[in-house]
């Protein structure tokens, strides 16, 4: 079906993914950068601050882009990051 797609899906608002809450345990981070590099949605980037172990922990660029695949949690060697679902406001 090669038609070029020109319109926004009408349901794009309705079927919204759950919002993510990303938790970074800064002082446990050793700055390997795995979470930043392998995040499929490029949600993270290296921060400027320096943590207890003298490295730059990651910081969140755009939490709304996170799809909670939790690969960062799985690939972190230092148990320094994990993601939870934000409890949705209404209903």
């Amino acid at each position, binding site marked *: 079906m090669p038609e070029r797609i020109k319109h926004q899906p009408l349901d794009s608002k309705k079927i919204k993914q759950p919002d993510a809450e990303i938790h970074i345990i800064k002082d446990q981070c050793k700055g*390997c950068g795995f979470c930043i590099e392998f995040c499929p949605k490029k949600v993270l980037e290296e921060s400027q601050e320096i943590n207890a172990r003298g490295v730059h922990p990651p910081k969140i660029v755009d939490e709304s882009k996170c799809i909670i695949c939790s690969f960062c949690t799985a690939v972190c*060697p230092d148990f320094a990051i*994990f993601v939870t679902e934000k409890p949705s406001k209404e209903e």
Partner: protein
Amino acid sequence: MVQEMVHPFSKYLRSAMIPHIWCSGCGNGVVLNSFVHALDELQMDLDKLVVVSGIGCIGRSAGYTNADSFHTTHGRAIPFATGVKLANPELEVVVISGDGDLFAIGGNHFIHAARRNIGIKVICANNFNYGMTGGQQGPTTPLESLTTTTPYGNIEHPFNLVHLAAASGATYVARWTTLHVRRLTQSIKRMLQKEGFCFIEVVTPCPEIFGRHNKMRTGLEMMEWFKRSSVVENFSDPSKAEITPERIVVGEFVNVQKVSYEKFFHEKLAQINEKAVEW
């Protein structure tokens, strides 16, 4: 907030021992992460779990796991685990150790435990060298690689660990890299649900020691290498799964049913006791 900052896996770790000693970019933490992840998904009874390790960086993982654990002398994790498993078959006994520990000084123990099909589960973090002693050549160091003891390039042929394990009779054999965490976790789960001797090799970045000598100074660079060169070929011939700079064949190579030593032993016991009569 504080409540939120508790990592979901922290209950599987000994808080007193975390953070661990491993370098930035070292893959050992990923191996430990996948291991506890598998424990979590299986809801394993930690009271019935024993983690045994030998000497080397990854050897510390026994101490980090919040279960009964033992840190043996160099190379002896497998015979220790054998003793534990035979003494109390109800226990799930997992050996987490390195390539040097398991296949150089401990190589003989490995092949015999596999041959006997003792129901222990072995996870080997293969980082291609002796990290803790500063990066000497080891049984898995690739040809021509540079280490502190092969300054002109390694001239020893490395072990193909999955081939060795399969040939020795392991009932489950898999290889993944620390980039394949999802599959690694699934493999560990599968292994923990099997009877008999199981083996998983995890190709692991060692940027500070091995990488530094071989133009891969960061964990990321080594992970990029894995990404570039890995091909998933489940149940392909393990003898053709050598690790080269161009090609890392990963996947499940063996998954067979074979009665374990301890199960066999207890079947025998039953027969013996049929015959046994009081004096």
